[in-house]
């Protein structure tokens, strides 16, 4: 049986087409990230009102929540890319997944570090073995494992396949992170943003947070595309379009 995918799907499979396409998108995402993060940082640190219980320490929320969201979104994106890479043997998809891994690991480290720092004045402890915190730590280990697998094989495509399988297996951790605050009694507070309910915070607090989340997404998209393009150049360095591109630069 042959499934016909739309045309853009096959265009994405072409390294040169993907390289050029991401080159067009890249400056837009970079600009949006710079603007949104700039506005979000100032808004969150200076213009958002202090919390009536936590005072000013809650301002950590503006960097903590977006990084935790991105850490999980990034993993889901990697799972989709890895799945496409495995099913259609698409090299570009594996390269996207590989390029996303270090960014996702960075986001997880930010979420864990800022969470620990926020926990100290709020809960009185840097770390508790709570379901949310533990499942986020497992996410970090998954990222580290996936990054290690990519370079553990002398044959690049074996490494990609192994990492893709670990990514798909590790996907079970994502719902565990999401529902950890509901399934278990945890210290961690429930989700800040949900699709069905209004946020428990006033708009003066959740608006800057929303700006930061969007800024993080744009920054992530920028980093991912830039990393993917570089990885494409490295992998395709024998092909005529990369040689032409290098000759242009000299």
């Amino acid at each position, binding site marked *: 049986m042959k499934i016909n995918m739309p045309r853009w799907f096959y265009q994405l499979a072409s390294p040169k087409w993907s390289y050029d396409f991401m080159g067009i998108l890249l400056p837009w995402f970079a600009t949006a990230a710079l603007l949104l993060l700039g506005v979000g*940082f100032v808004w969150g*640190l*200076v*213009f*958002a*009102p*202090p919390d009536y219980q936590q*005072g*000013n*320490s809650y*301002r*950590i929320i503006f*960097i*903590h929540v977006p*990084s935790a969201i991105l850490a999980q979104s990034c993993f889901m994106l990697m799972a989709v890319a890895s799945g496409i890479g495995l099913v259609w043997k698409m090299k570009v998809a594996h390269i996207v997944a590989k390029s996303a891994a*270090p*960014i996702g690991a*960075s986001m997880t*480290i*930010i979420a864990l*570090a*800022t969470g620990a*720092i*926020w926990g*100290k*004045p709020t809960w009185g402890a840097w770390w508790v073995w709570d379901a949310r915190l533990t499942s986020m730590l497992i996410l970090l280990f998954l990222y580290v494992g996936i990054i290690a697998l990519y370079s553990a094989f002398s044959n690049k495509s074996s490494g990609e396949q192994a990492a893709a399988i670990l990514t798909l297996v590790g996907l079970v951790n994502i719902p565990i992170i999401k529902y950890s605050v509901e399934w278990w009694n945890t210290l961690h507070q429930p989700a800040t943003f949900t699709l069905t309910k209004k946020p428990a915070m006033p708009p003066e607090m959740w608006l800057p947070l929303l700006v930061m989340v969007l800024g993080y997404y744009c*920054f992530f998209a920028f*980093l991912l595309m*830039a*990393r993917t393009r*570089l990885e494409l*150049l*490295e992998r395709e*360095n024998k092909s005529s379009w990369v040689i032409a591109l*290098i*000759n242009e*630069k*000299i």
Partner: protein
Amino acid sequence: MGYFNSFSDFLDMGGHALYVWLSYAITLLIFIANILSLWLKKRAFFNLAKRHAKREQRNS
């Protein structure tokens, strides 16, 4: 300035200065490290490519 009475008030963060500024510093540091590593990798790639191209010119 915003919800703070003065700049020193802002720096103090209601007594939570250490926690707030440490969190923001770590985040910024990781952001910058991501951009820097990308830039260094890119430079290394093109430097290597240039050397290869020059060697091939000499050989031909």
